[in-house]
């Protein structure tokens, strides 16, 4: 019998798992994919928003503001790079200026640092803006993190602190009686006192299994495109247009890795699995971002992806204990700013559990610090030398574009990577401009050796995604 079963291993599920691991509870997280972070969380922009976009009376606004503050500490604990590069909202026409003034007023009221930047000062901090852009609102507390690394770090830390994980297990049924819930995940039955639904785009389907679905999830697709790292100076901030009432717009995003990302689109779709990119999406993004940074070229794109935002029909986050099914807690509709809000959502869940009568006693052996994720490319030569002395495999570079060593791949596997994508998201091997041309067979060889499975069974991301068909 578990105290708590969390359904969904994205950023939200893992943030909740990690927060719960502070307490003397038996917790399990159930995920349908072969690895965590393989759903919406892998297709995230990596932005820690300042909070100026959302109204503080909404859950989105309140938890985004809180999340922004928590991230500073959390990134340190989990040893994840986090840089407050700041966001700027640019006025592309004079009509935008009063809107920015209003946002600035709101920011002041809500204690979010922000200021107007104009003319030469604006040029100085963001030299590649379109010449007609002369006014922008700067919110310096916004930042960037590597979103999948963050999810993996939460996962590893939660596991280290006693949370159990059941992967590759799709929840197909939930029933409850006076003793609690029985969650059927493929062939296993999990008994738990509480169920927390963090199933992302499938949150409404999961809630429906037990009749706690007083909401609907409307999948909204966003395409994003990554530019070659060589252009790392094209933008210094996360550049937003002045928002309209329904959207934050299409952005020029500085990423923690130094490459620039452009997007996302926002397209309401029916298929929760449709992560295809489109010619129209690319054109829309390019046309739009060029109104802010005209130098961006199609030929600079090295990669594309699409993610699906789980938008609730209330348009706000839904974080509450079901009124009809006691002890069933929804953490649903977590679209943007979900990544920023995730650690605050976790705290919100703790409060809900306490109020619901869960006996929440803190453990005295909680270990907040994750072990360091050694990234060769971030070290200087003396540090590299020391690391190679400890483990020779740090000297064997298996990914040229991102300078990833064999030892980093082995470490990723020890931390739970089972697939080529899992290695990619954890180490960046294959993310560079050659798009895995050089490293794929190295990664397959290392996976095969470490997991003791034949190379031809290695998959890109589980299921039927084997890289090669058969041995010759």
């Amino acid at each position: 019998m578990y105290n708590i079963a969390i359904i969904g291993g994205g950023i939200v599920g893992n943030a909740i798992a990690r927060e719960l691991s502070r307490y003397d509870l038996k917790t399990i997280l159930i995920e349908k994919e072969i690895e965590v972070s393989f759903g919406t969380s892998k297709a995230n922009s990596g932005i820690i928003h300042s909070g100026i976009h959302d109204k503080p009376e909404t859950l989105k606004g309140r938890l985004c503001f809180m999340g922004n503050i928590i991230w500073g500490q959390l990134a340190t604990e989990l040893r994840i790079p986090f840089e407050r590069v700041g966001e700027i909202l640019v006025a592309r026409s004079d009509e935008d200026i009063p809107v920015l003034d209003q946002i600035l007023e709101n920011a002041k009221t809500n204690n979010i640092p922000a200021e107007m930047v104009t003319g030469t000062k604006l040029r100085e901090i963001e030299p590649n803006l379109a010449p007609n852009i002369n006014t922008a609102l700067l919110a310096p507390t916004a930042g960037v993190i590597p979103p999948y690394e963050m999810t993996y770090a939460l996962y590893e830390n939660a596991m280290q602190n006693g949370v159990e994980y059941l992967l590759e297990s799709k929840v197909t049924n939930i029933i409850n009686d006076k003793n609690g819930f029985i969650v059927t995940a493929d062939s296993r039955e999990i008994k738990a006192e509480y169920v927390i639904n963090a199933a992302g785009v499938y949150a409404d389907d999961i809630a429906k299994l037990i009749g706690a679905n007083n909401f609907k999830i409307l999948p909204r697709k966003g395409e994003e495109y990554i530019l070659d790292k060589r252009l790392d100076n094209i933008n210094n901030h996360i550049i937003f247009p002045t928002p309209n009432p329904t959207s934050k717009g299409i952005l020029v995003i500085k990423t923690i890795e130094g490459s620039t990302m452009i997007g996302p689109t926002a397209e309401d779709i029916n298929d929760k699995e449709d992560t295809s990119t489109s010619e129209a999406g690319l054109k829309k993004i390019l046309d739009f971002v060029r109104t802010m940074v005209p130098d961006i070229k199609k030929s600079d794109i090295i990669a594309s992806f699409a993610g699906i935002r789980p938008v609730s029909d209330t348009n706000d986050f839904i974080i509450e204990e079901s009124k009809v099914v006691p002890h069933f807690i929804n953490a649903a509709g977590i679209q943007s700013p979900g990544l920023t809000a995730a650690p605050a959502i976790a705290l919100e869940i703790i409060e809900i559990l306490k109020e619901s009568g869960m006996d929440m006693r803190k453990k005295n052996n909680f270990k907040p610090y994750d072990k360091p994720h050694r990234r060769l490319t971030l070290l200087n030569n003396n540090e590299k030398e020391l690391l190679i002395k400890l483990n020779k495999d740090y000297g064997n570079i298996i990914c040229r574009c991102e300078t990833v060593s064999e030892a980093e791949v082995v470490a990723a596997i020890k931390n739970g990577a089972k697939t080529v994508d899992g290695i990619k998201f954890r180490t960046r091997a294959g993310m560079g401009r050659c798009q895995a041309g050089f490293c794929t067979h190295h990664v397959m060889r290392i996976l095969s050796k470490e997991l003791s499975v034949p190379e031809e069974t290695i998959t890109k991301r589980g299921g039927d995604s084997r890289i090669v068909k058969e041995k010759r």
Partner: protein
Amino acid sequence: MKKISTDLIVIGAGPGGMAAALKASEMGIKNILLVDRLEELGGILQQCIHNGFGLQKFEKDLTGPEYADHYINLIKKTNIEVLLHSMAIEITKDKKVILSNNIDGLIEVSAKAIVLAMGCRERTRQQVSIPGTRPAGIFTAGVAQRFVNIEGYMPGKSVVVVGSGDIGMIMARRMTLEGAKVHAVTEILPYAGGLTRNIVQCLEDYQIPLHLNHNVINICGKDRVTGVKIAKIDSNGDPTNETFDIECDTLLFSVGLIPENELSRMVPLDINPVTGGPYIDDTYHTGNDGIFICGNAAFVNDLADYVSLEGEIAGEAAAKYALYGNRPNSRIPTIAGDNVRFIVPNFITRQDQVTLYVRVTEPITDVRVISTDGIVNLKKQIVKPSEMVEIKLDSDKLKKISQLKELKIDVKKNG
């Protein structure tokens, strides 16, 4: 960190790097270090088990590994120090190179001269912006070639090749020989990207359809590729409504090659946006004194034979630089004129003999390749982008050229 000094370091042991090291050795240079990231010498030649190598250089029809063996055997007879399984991760203006491997850790090499011979990499699906899903089963042709010929795995059984580059056509044949069904090769342009001999020997001989003016406009499949949508392309290069679907489990991309210049950018060397390689003179000397570059790292060649020839020139010049440390002052720029996409090398310095290579913008029949003052004046029945025009300049011509401000080459339709 282990520190070593050498007269010459050659980075990359494919056809260019091996030829450069050998030539430098012949020139009497004592300390030569030849480095490669792979476990054996030969570079990409080792996965090119098809024939067609050496026709120009040795007038023999060799496979890639046979062609590589010729050089490997010669290298074994020299004092060239070979360091394999080692990645060059850093390079500086003053000719220091940092290598990384799992035996020595980091090694700092100080060299009097460097020859860069990193070869090229393949453009990917992403760089040609093909929309759709991102399932397993999408490879560049060269990666598939490595899987089949070196690793011993079949990437898939039911294949569409996107783009008609040489490796794509060679892999269309290879996959067919290994029992896969290759449904089609698509090419967005009105003409093939690769050599005529490959169209005949790899596609026509195996009845593999080549769809010119066609491109894949959508990729389907969640976990694994399940099919593609192909559209006819209009004269502006845009897809038309004339489309058809092919079910397949694998896509191979052969949509162009890009010189591998991560290291060159660290120096930094000035990169020619048209070739994708650094600007070079006719000894393959870059703008940075003592750093030379040859083969596909400098510009994408049609044949390994050409790469070896360039390697020899670069190796000889690098050896001379290591010995005497000087370079010629005067140089005449070469300029790409009408219908010329690029001309290499970018500067003429030599008085004895120089070979220029011209890549045209599109296929044209019955042309004249003509230079400033008519010093070069060649008649050609056909020129095409897949096959560079070679211009050999002897000492007489070079003497005339040395009086010019620049040498412009135009490719003009006769009449």
